[in-house]
């Protein structure tokens, strides 16, 4: 294994800030989707599976589903951006994508990711360490 490449702390922090917003927006959007699905299929559910008796809720669902899909795609793109900047392995990217599809999980996923980012910025070499010189980097760690 070669020595890990240094991270760019400034870029990482910018990407994380975007990812954090996306996590929260996606989390809320997914909760809204779950509420709509419950109204459509459970509260106004038909006798058969996946049928509904409420035209209104079917309409609302058909409007929100694509919007949520778009929000999730933006979330994936911003997660991908953070993943690149953190130079993480492939499984970590799959994990970030997974955080976005389970209701409520993206809020916890965002906190967990924040922890990982802060921890790794402390432990792994960054460009800023090198700029400040080895002494400053060591003092910061």
């Amino acid at each position, binding site marked *: 294994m*070669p020595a890990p490449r240094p991270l760019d702390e400034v870029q990482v922090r910018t990407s994380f800030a975007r990812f954090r917003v996306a996590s929260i927006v996606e989390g809320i959007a997914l909760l809204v989707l779950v509420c709509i699905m419950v109204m459509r299929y459970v509260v106004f559910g038909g006798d058969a599976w996946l049928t509904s*008796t409420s035209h209104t809720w079917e309409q609302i669902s*058909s409007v929100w589903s*694509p919007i949520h*899909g778009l929000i999730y*795609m933006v979330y994936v793109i911003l997660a991908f951006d953070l993943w690149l900047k953190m*130079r993480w392995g*492939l499984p970590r990217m799959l994990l970030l994508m997974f955080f976005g599809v389970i209701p409520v999980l993206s809020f916890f996923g965002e906190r967990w990711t924040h922890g990982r980012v802060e921890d790794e910025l402390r432990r792994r070499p960054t*460009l800023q360490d090198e700029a400040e010189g080895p002494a400053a980097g060591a003092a910061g760690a």
Partner: protein
Amino acid sequence: MGPMLRVALRPRFLGLLALMVLATVVCGLLATWQWERAHRALSEDTSVAEELGPVQDVIGLADPVTNELVGGIVTASGSFDAERQILVGGRHIDGTDAVIVVTALEVTTSEGEQAILPVARGWVPAEQVTGADGELDPALAPAPPSGEVEISGRLEASEAATDGIFEGVASEIATPLLVNAWGDPMYAGYVAQTSAAEGLSPMPVAESAFQRGLDWQNIGYAAQWIVFGVFFLYLWGRTVRTAHLDELAAQREELERSLASAGEHPDQRPDPGVPADAAPTQEDADAGTPTPR
């Protein structure tokens, strides 16, 4: 490409590739499913309310009611059999709990054979046919007209049976169940009567999600699944490339360090032919090694 391919063929990356291919295949299947749904919507959309003529000319006894035929208006003449009539409950029409009355119409096929055509004559509010015990009672349903009648209505495919027919009550208008209760020969579909029937409200259009023009939405979803599928493969390629470039950069730094130390101690220089000063800066820029800003 050679060295990068060697990185790609490592067990770890091959394992990840298998995972990514699996994810892509799943996405492909989901895309196909959405694509088919979109097309089903299209084929059903164009077939609504076409005048098809007498039912005998539209389908034979053994023929299925295809998507092209569903929703088309057919006519049928024959006589209703009051003894062969069932109630199909659990429906919601215009905000009321509704029960559909399905009666056997005895018709003569184009071959001159006697056959049964199930006809959903219309619906009544559930309370109208609910007996004192709270159960649906077929005896309370409006009786069909006697003698030779002519009706018209939409040709519909049989609903999928989930349960049986118990004491004249069923949950679906399913010909596989009706043929057991009423005998054969019987047509494979049924007619939802639109011409007036005494004591009954006319059947609404059998509305399915597919008839509501969801086609573009489904095509959009199919495209979305394809994008996700490609994205998984791209992630893998990107991971292999990063690993490869990192190793190259590490090798260069290693070389730089050895060259630099060789420059400080000219006696220990490993290769006297390499200019110690020029090479590292060039390598530095190529490797994308960070320079302090």
